[in-house]
């Protein structure tokens, strides 16, 4: 369960947002790398993420250094 920081502490709440985005990015890269390694197509990854295939490939392909070789 997520405990929302109290609204009178914007510094803490905003820091949590930044940390969550970073965590979400890490999770996305790790999950997409696994999916591609397991033979998912970029179209399937894009559907699962709810974005266009172009968007998924553009945003993620270059950040996954090893997937092309594997």
């Amino acid at each position, binding site marked *: 369960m*997520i405990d929302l*920081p109290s609204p009178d502490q914007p510094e803490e709440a905003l*820091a949590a947002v*930044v*940390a969550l985005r970073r*965590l979400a990015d*890490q*999770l996305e890269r790790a999950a997409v790398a696994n999916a591609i390694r397991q033979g998912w197509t970029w179209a399937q990854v894009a559907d699962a993420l709810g974005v266009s295939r172009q968007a998924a490939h553009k945003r993620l392909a*270059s950040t996954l250094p090893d997937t092309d070789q594997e």
Partner: protein
Amino acid sequence: MLQMLKRRIDEMRTIKTLCTAAERHANADGAREPGLEHFLLAALDLPDGTARRAFARAGADPDGFRSAVARQYADALAGIGIAPDAAAAVPSMPVAPASGPYRAKTQVESLMRTLAAREEKRAGAGLLGAHVVAAIAAERHGVAARALARMGLDEDALERAALAEADAAAGARA
């Protein structure tokens, strides 16, 4: 005249070194675009050594900054109930360097403007790591500011220490 030109070229070279190193730190950290925390790490790498001495003068170990950044993320997540173990279980993968024009977080643009605006003031020594530390220490919000606070560093004290270190280096060079 020639002296001034040479100084400007040296400054541009230092900026380029900083930008390249900051991007490397960002990529290793799983981020595509460097933020101020990555520029601080890059400043600590500069061969002039003044950034590291500024930390020491303010009473902190410069090598502790990287882990303070990580601790700051873990604390922020713990604050909303995400246990450090859970966050650490997500693998952090480095990203490949971006191709195309150099991109950085917005705060980096303002750092570059600050460094450029202070060029006159550092007449003797040129751009040093300590100047970068001073400019970043003056930022009150964001990951770098929170990490510095985690190290027990008072931002004003660090800024003063960095400027003192820069002056000392300028005096030594003059």
